[in-house]
Structures are given as C-alpha cells and as structure tokens.
C-alpha cells in the first residue's frame, strides 16, 4: 500500500510526530516510516569545499531547503517560492484574495421612514429619571453649600508691573531699620583667576597642607589653578554646592551687627612723659658683686649707703663696699639666709639676719669705730628685769666665738623665720615666721630684749610685714589682702584688696601714703591709702612672678624684680595736693641677671641717697645699676 503522492518513490514519511528532532541527534536514523522501518539519515559527506562548490555551481541552491523530518534536501517549486515571498511582504497567502473589496453599508446615514425595529418606546422614556434627579439635586446641594465653586475667572492682570510706582516713606517700617542685610559674597581675588600670577599658585607643601585642613578652616575653598587658555577651563564641580551654602547662610545664619574697631593702633598707646624728662634713674649696669656660690635671696644696705649686705642660700652673709664691689666680710651662718635688714637708724650699726629658726643681730663692725662701739655698748647696757616674763621667743646672747664674728644676739623662734624688718627708729623689729598659727608675726624690742605677738588670731598666711616710716601703723600682707593696723590703738584701720592671687612682697613710699605690692601672678598693685582700698593702678609689666619691690627713699622711683630676669624701674611721682593722682611711668627695663632654676631677680634695693639700684639674682650675683 503506497500513499497517493505524485512521486511515491521519493515520498518517505516520518512517523515520529511533532517532537524536537535533536533527540535523534546521536542515532544513525532519524525516525520510522509508515512500515515501522528506520529511516536512515542521508549520508552527508560533503566538506566545506564541496558545499562551497555546490553553492557556486548549483543554480537552485538558493531554493533548496532541508526537510528536518527526513533530512533530505528539497527543492522548492515556483509556487512555493512565490508563497514565501508573499508572506514575507506581509500579503495574504492566497493570491486570489482581495482585501480591498468595496464596503457595503448595512445601515445608511439617511433617516428612513421605517424604524429598524418596531419595538414600542419604553415607559422610562416618558417619565423623568430619578437617578438624574438625584445627581442634579446633589450638585445643587453642593453648589448651595459652597462645595462646588464656579470656575475662577482667569486672572489676566500682568505678572510684572511697576511695583515701586508709589514709594511712600511710611512703608519703611521699624523692621527695615532693624533689618540686618546679609553681607554680600566676598569678591574674588587674584588667586581665583583661571590664569593667576604664578605666586598665587600653591606649592606642593601648601597644597598638602590645604588638603589636610578641615574644610571649614581653609582660607580658600578652592585650590588655585592655572589654565593655558580659556577653552581648557572645566566646569567648577562645587558650583551648585556653593550656591546652596549661600542659601543656607541667608536663611539659617544668625545675623548680628558687629562694631568694627577702626582705630589707629598708635592712638591706643597712652601719651606719657618721656623718660628722658624724668631723670635721674638707673640706666646701665655699673658693678657686679661676685662671691656667692648660690642664689642671693636678700639684700640690705647701710643707712649711709656705704655698705651692702647680702644673704645667700650657700649659708653665708657677705658685706660689700658699694663703690668698689669688694667683699669686706664673710659671715658663715650655717643655713639659708631668708631675710636680712640693716638697722635704718644711722647711729646704730646693727644688721638683723633671718636664718632658719632664729634671727641674728649682727654688728658688722664696718665703718666708724665709734659708731659700732657705741652699738655694742648699747647692747651690753641691757639689764635683765627682775621678774621673768613669758616670751614667745628666746633671747640668747652670742657665745664668744660667735661674738668674735660679729653676732651679738640670737632670737630663737620655734619655726623658720621668713622675714625680718626694722622699724624706722631702729629699736623695734618685726619677724615673720612660716607658721599657720596666730604667732606668725612677732615684734621684738632690741633694747629691752623683749618680744610679743601682736595678733590673737591668724588671718591667713602672712607674706610680708612693714612698719610705717613715720606713724604708728603696721602693714601685714597675707596672700590676698594687706591689713593696716594701728599699733597705738591696737586695731585694724584698713584692709586693702590687692586683686592678686598671691602677694609676694610689699614696699611703702617714704611719704607713707602709698604702698606697692608685688605678686606671684606677675602683677604690681599701687595703693593710694587716701584714695581707696582697691589698687589705684595694677601694673602688668613683668612676664613672670614678681619677687620683690622697692621704693627709693628720696627720688620718685620704684622698682620691681621678677623671675623673668628683669628689673623694671618706674617713675612714681606722688603729689602733695590731694587732688592730683600719682603719676606712674615706667622708665627703664634693666636686664643682666641670668635665669637659673627658673628664677631671675630675687631682691631689689635702692641706694638710700643715689639713684642707684641693686639687684640680687639666682645666678649668685648682685648687680648695681646706675
């Protein structure tokens, strides 16, 4: 039974059905024919060259396709080729089909006398619609209630017009006067140019520094760059950010009116009398007194001005002749000399030396023999009173060995002595003990060898004490205050506030109405006792702590020595009429001392008659400036 086909011999029908033909890839056959026999794949032994030759030679190559079911080559007939071409063109497969047949309208647009349908009209076409009524009533209600508004008329006034046509001055309100206009953006400098002068470009280090800085700290918010021509300039990447930052500044930055100080700095310098007009004062270093091996803590000078005595940490007291810088005498005392004071009475030749826990009264045996002989006699003429009085200290006469060295009397305290000072008459002397009790200050009478503690209660750590040169007043400087006591009435007369943290030293004007206080916080306070209890002036001349201050006895001069190694001499004129305030003018900065162990000048002292000043320093020297 052979199928009815035009050429039955060639007709091989595959019976595998619609399956992917890859399944037969690895088999020699490609399927089964109607009889169930295998259909073998046609032998394909053509290589590429053969294929190419066939392509070149066979005129029907282009219309030959492979039947996938059988693997045989099939040459398409002319009709088949035409069909393919028509389909490719998007035409209908059937040649005879006409897609553009004339359309025949089923209904005409003309109104005919006969209806299309003969159905009678509905009832609802005669009665008003409820639904519509509902809708309309809803709309009416909405319009009534103002929910639906009629369309707004188009606003056809011009967008821009002359807004400032009527500038009335009344419209400038208080707000505008208070308004702080935003400052304008800073105008660009040369460095922002696309082609700046070469000096404005950053060097490598500067660029590195710029990169490491915080964005807010940078002086320029861009790196200056140089481009050879305008066409090479790129867009600035931070342009939008900068505009945005400006916007933020405009509405988020607090504004404040700031008064710019526009003064000439020269005008700020006070007009003072020239130092040249205030002479005499010490100007140059004249002599250096060498001999001490350690820092020289204290200085004192004889009332005649011929002898100088200095006490040092090396445990000696040296007596110098002022004019020659010769060391006349060395007195070993076996301890750190904290304070030294020459008796201000010119008829008595006596020096009080504060060493550790005792005060030595020494007769230096210098100068007029009559004078120091008289002093010795005065001391020996002491007759002990009948009844022993209770004293806070012990008075001991010196041993013979000590006597030969000059020591006459020893006042033994219970604690280390900080300071000794004489009363102007030369009989009384006060000593300060480093103690926290009420026994800090002691007043001794040398002729009667009698001591007393003037205060019942301690008012703080006493730093320095002073006798008023003419009147019975006694000054006690604690850390922050200076108290003035009346010795006759035995009462507190004044309390001066120094405005300093820690008073180091104190000196009194020979007139007795002015006091200066040096402090460790490098301030010098000048008090006018008649004026107020606060400093008349607080001078901050020194860079470091003040160690000592001194007044000249005759000239209107005072000086301060400090840890920064300098001595500053000031002119301090006190006028006799009460209306005029003292005139303070610094006149000279004297330098010379070498700073050792962070200490510079430890004591300053004026010559009693000449405009000379002595200073002792931590470098173990005493210097004289004239």
């Amino acid at each position: 039974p052979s199928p009815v086909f035009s050429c039955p011999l060639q007709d091989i029908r595959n019976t595998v059905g619609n399956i992917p033909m890859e399944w037969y890839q690895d088999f020699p056959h490609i399927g089964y024919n109607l009889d169930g026999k295998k259909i073998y794949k046609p032998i394909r032994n053509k290589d590429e060259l053969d294929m190419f030759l066939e392509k070149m030679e066979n005129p029907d190559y282009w219309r030959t396709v492979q039947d996938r079911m059988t693997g045989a080559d099939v040459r398409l007939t002319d009709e088949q080729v035409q069909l393919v071409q028509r389909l490719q063109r998007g035409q209908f497969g059937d040649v005879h089909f006409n897609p553009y047949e004339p359309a025949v309208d089923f209904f005409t647009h003309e109104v005919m006398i006969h209806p299309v349908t003969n159905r009678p009209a509905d009832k609802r076409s005669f009665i008003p619609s409820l639904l519509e009524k509902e809708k309309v009533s809803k709309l009416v209600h909405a319009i009534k209630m103002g929910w639906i508004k009629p369309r707004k008329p188009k606003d056809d006034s011009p967008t821009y017009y002359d807004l400032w046509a009527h500038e009335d001055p009344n419209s400038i309100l208080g707000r505008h006067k208070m308004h702080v206009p935003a400052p304008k953006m800073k105008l660009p400098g040369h460095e922002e140019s696309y082609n700046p002068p070469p000096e404005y470009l950053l060097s490598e280090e500067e660029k590195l520094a710029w990169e490491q800085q915080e964005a807010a700290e940078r002086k320029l918010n861009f790196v200056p760059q140089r481009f050879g021509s305008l066409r090479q300039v790129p867009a600035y990447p931070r342009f939008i950010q900068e505009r945005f930052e400006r916007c933020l500044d405009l509405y988020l930055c607090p504004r404040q009116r700031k008064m710019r100080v526009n003064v000439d700095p020269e005008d700020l310098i006070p007009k003072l009398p020239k130092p040249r007009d205030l002479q005499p004062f010490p100007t140059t270093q004249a002599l250096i007194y060498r001999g001490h091996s350690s820092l020289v803590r204290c200085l004192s000078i004889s009332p005649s001005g011929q002898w100088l005595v200095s006490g040092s940490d090396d445990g000696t007291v040296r007596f110098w002749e002022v004019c020659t810088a010769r060391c006349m005498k060395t007195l070993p005392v076996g301890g750190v000399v904290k304070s030294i004071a020459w008796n201000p009475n010119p008829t008595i030749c006596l020096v009080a030396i504060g060493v550790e826990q005792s005060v030595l009264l020494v007769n230096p045996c210098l100068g007029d023999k009559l004078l120091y002989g008289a002093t010795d006699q005065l001391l020996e003429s002491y007759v002990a009173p009948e009844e022993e009085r209770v004293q806070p200290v012990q008075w001991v006469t010196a041993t013979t060995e000590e006597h030969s060295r000059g020591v006459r009397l020893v006042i033994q305290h219970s604690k280390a002595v900080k300071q000794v000072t004489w009363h102007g008459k030369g009989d009384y002397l006060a000593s300060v003990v480093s103690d926290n009790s009420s026994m800090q200050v002691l007043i001794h009478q040398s002729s009667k060898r009698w001591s007393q503690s003037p205060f019942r209660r301690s008012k703080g750590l006493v730093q320095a004490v002073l006798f008023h040169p003419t009147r019975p007043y006694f000054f006690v400087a604690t850390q922050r205050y200076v108290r003035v006591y009346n010795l006759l009435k035995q009462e507190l007369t004044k309390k001066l506030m120094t405005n300093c943290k820690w008073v180091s030293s104190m000196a009194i004007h020979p007139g007795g109405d002015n006091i200066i206080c040096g402090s460790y916080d490098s301030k010098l306070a000048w008090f006018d006792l008649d004026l107020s209890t606060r400093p008349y002036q607080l001078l901050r001349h020194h860079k470091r702590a003040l160690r000592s201050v001194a007044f000249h006895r005759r000239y209107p001069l005072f000086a301060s020595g400090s840890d920064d190694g300098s001595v500053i001499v000031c002119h301090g004129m006190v006028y006799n009429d009460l209306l005029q305030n003292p005139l303070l003018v610094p006149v000279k900065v004297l330098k010379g001392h070498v700073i050792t162990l962070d200490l510079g000048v430890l004591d300053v002292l004026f010559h009693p008659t000449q405009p000379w000043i002595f200073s002792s320093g931590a470098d173990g020297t005493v210097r004289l400036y004239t």
Partner: protein
Amino acid sequence: TIPRRLCILKGIYPHEPKHKKKVNKGSTAPRTFYLLKDIKFLLHEPIVNKFREYKVFVRKLRKAYGKSEWGTVDRLKDNKPTYKLDHIVKERYPTFIDALRDLDDALSMCFLFSTFPRTGKCHVQTIQLCRRLAVEFLNYVIASRSLRKVFLSIKGIYYQAEVLGQPITWITPYTFAHDHPTDVDYRVMATFTEFYTTLLGFVNFRLYHSLNLVYPPKIDGQADAELKPVEGKEYAMDSESYLEKLSALSASLARVVAPAHEDEVEMDEFPVEGETAEQMDTRKKEQEALEKHKKMFEGLRFFLNREVPREPLAFIIRCFGGQVSWDKSLCIGATYDASDPSITHHIIDRPRLEQQAVGRCYLQPQWVFDSVNAKMCLPVADYFPGVLLPPHLSPFVTEQEGDYVPPEKLKLLALQRGENPDEESEEEEEEDEEDDNDKEEEEDEDESEKEEEMKLKKMEEQKTQNNKALPVKVTAGKLRLEDKKRLEQEQQSEEKRLAIMMMKKREKYLYKKIMFGKKRKVREANKLAAKRKAHDTAVKEEKKKSKKARRA
C-alpha cells in the same frame, strides 16, 4: 518648628542674642534663636492661608486620583489655588534701591537655574522663567551700558554692573553639564528661586521702563526684520525662537518712545554745595573716564570663532558698544560672516590658525576681559593665538598700602597712566644685554676667583708664619662710631615699649590684636613677593639655558 519656606520667602533670619547664657537657660550650646517679633510677624502673613489651601488641594487631588474620579481631578485642577509674592517683595524692599542692593544673589541663582537641564531637578517652567529673566537683564545691561568689570575665575565668570549707582555682582557658571551633587536640597534652592524670580521680574520691569524700553522686551523692528528666519525653516515655535533671538544679544531693543537720534542732552552742571573746585574737577574727570569706558569698543567689529564661549563675549562686547557676530550655524542672530572684510578683531581660542585674513587682529578671548578691566584697549601683542597669556588679574581687588601688588598690576597701572607703552621690548633688549654682561661677568668672575685663591693662599702662609712666630697677638682696637640715628631710633622704640607696658588691659589686647593682624598681612605679602621672585629667577634661568642650547 518654624516653617522653612516662609522664613525664606519673608527673609526671616535667626539672631545672635546679646546674652546667650541668659537666653539659653545657662547653657552655651549652639542654638538658633529667632526674634519673637519675627515669628509673630510670620503668623499674620496672608500667604500662610494660601499655603494651607494648597496643601488641602494636593490632598484632595491625591484622593481623587486614588479613586480614579477623573471629573473631580479636572475640576480640582481648574480651581488650583495660586499665590503671588508681589506684596512680600514690596514689603521686604520698600524702595527700589533696596531691591537693587539685594540683587546679587537673585541674579546668580537665576543664572544657575537657567543652565539646569530640564530633567526634573526642578520645574521646567522655573528653568524657562529664569532663563527669560536672565536674558532680559542682560539685555538691559547692554542697553544701559552699565557693565563695569568682568572676571574669568575658575568657578565661573563674574560680572559687575553699576545700576543706578549700585554695584551688582553676579556669577555665571561655565556652560557645561552640571554634575548634580547629592548633598544639596533642591527644594530650598527652588524656594529661593521662586522669590528671586518674582523680585527680578519686577526689577526688570522697572529698569526697562527707566530706559523707555518696552517690557516684555521686543527686538527693534528694523533689526527684527533682518533677523527673521526663512519661513518655517529652522524653528518650529515662534515664541521659543523669540527668546532665543533675544538671548543672542545681538539686536537692540524696541523703545516706547523713539530715541532722539544721537543727540545726547548736555547735562547742566549744578555745583554741589560744600564742594571745592578740585573735587568738582575730579568728579568731572571721573565722569569723562566713565563715558570713555562705556564707548570703549565703539566702531570695532568682532567675530567670535565657534570654540569661544559666545554668550559672555557677545554680552561684554555689546555692552561696550562693539559689534559682534558669529558663525551662522552656531546660533541665531549672526549679523555678518567670517569673511566680512570690515571685521577688526577675530576672537579665537585655538593654538594655531591655518589661514589668516588680512586686516584683522586674531586674539584670544582674555583680551576682551582684560581690556574691559583696564578700561582701555590693551596692546594686542600679548594675546595672539598660541601665545603664553599674561596673568588674568581680578578687577575686584583694590590694593591698600602695604598689600602685595603683583607686578602685572603695576604694569597695568603704568599703562593706564599713559607711561612707556613699549617697555616690554626695551626690557627684552635689556635682558639680552644683561645676558651678554653676565657672560663677561662670568669670565671676570673666573679671573677674580683665581686672584682670590692666590690671595687666600698667601694669607694662609702668612698665618702659619705668624702662628709660629708669635703665639699672642694684639689686634688694633676698632673705633666704634655711634650711630646717632640708630641710637635715637632705639630710644624711641624703647619709649614705645615702655608706653605699651602702661596700657590698660583691654586696650593692650586690642593693640596686640591689631598689630598681629598687621604683621600677618606683611608676612603674607612678603611670602607672595618671595614666591614671585623665585619664580621669575627660575624662568630667567630657563630662558638663558634654552638660549645657550640654541646657540650651541
């Protein structure tokens, strides 16, 4: 919290309280403080209600969209609430001058926004409006010839115009696509722009009317006819092409009243009271210089090559009375061709040009900018194409005494005063001479070195002999001459130091601060000068080397 938008529109800013601790309950932590008065002022602003309405509108619209009620959407859109900022502008700037004073930021912002792409960073209408207003302002500046200074910086181009006596400075970015940053809140910027466009519109209106120009601007009829493109060929929309024609900046604007042709009314001079003749003279001179500056490019015909930024250059040249044109394909509004023989200056920005037309200067664009800043046409020799340009200096810097002045500025000042214009060539000659001299000197130096060596040898010999003979030597004392002047100076400085010691604490602090600032300034100036010197010597040496190499 305070509504940000309202603050921006009303110009409310925080204040720094006088006593921060008192206000901040004892703490000094940074906080912003607004004046209570300001906030109250914000509250009864009518625009607040409009904002609320708008918020409601947006909510309703969203709801309608959600429910797909298209009818409601249409109705809502028809009744979209709008608001105007006119009264706020008037309130913030009660007088026109106030508005002009605050125009800097408005202009910069508008110019920035007009360069934005229309891709949704902000509304397209805003961008268009900004562009329109910016172009209008540029046209006004051209018409009034009020541009004074221009500056090419690496950030953009700065312009400074003087409008009614107020300097107005603005910056435009270079025309490149923006790299939109992520850390910028565009809504804030848009709010600012909203206000600024309103302000700028009103200002433009007023400015145009002050010059009798039609607002919105119209191109002068005669020029318009010339500019009209062939029917429907290039541009589809007339309205768009109109703005482009305006932005071409090449045509003059129509006036309300036809201008009386070229006869400027001579201004009567009224002597101001309390003014001396000298002051009057200087004022007059200034006026004359200004007039001259305004007409700097009059009679010159420029042509811009296509690589040159067209808009800024056209704007500048037109501002100073020059005529300008460009390639037809570049932009609308070109008035003459590149081959026009009457062109005097051809602006070009390429290293080399193959064929040069005769009778015109080929110049780099910097020449235009530098000339404007110098208030005179600078010599063209330094600005030929391919030449190393002289530095472009900022016109906004006025050096005070003690500031560093770059040598180019000094040269420019000399030029302005009318001193030796061909200093350059002389200098070069001098340099050549110097070079020669140097050579001679070098030879001399060689000789002298030899001599010195001989001397040294002798000296050494002597020394050794001396050492052998006399171990101890007495040297003659030198007579020390005391310099009186120096002594005096020292004394004065000491007096000053002592006086400074006596200053009060507060004054001393102030004095020290002022002196510190002064010293820092001097230090910076010195640093710049030293840098310049080092650079100059380096350049000179390089030159010498290259010269030698060439000779060899």
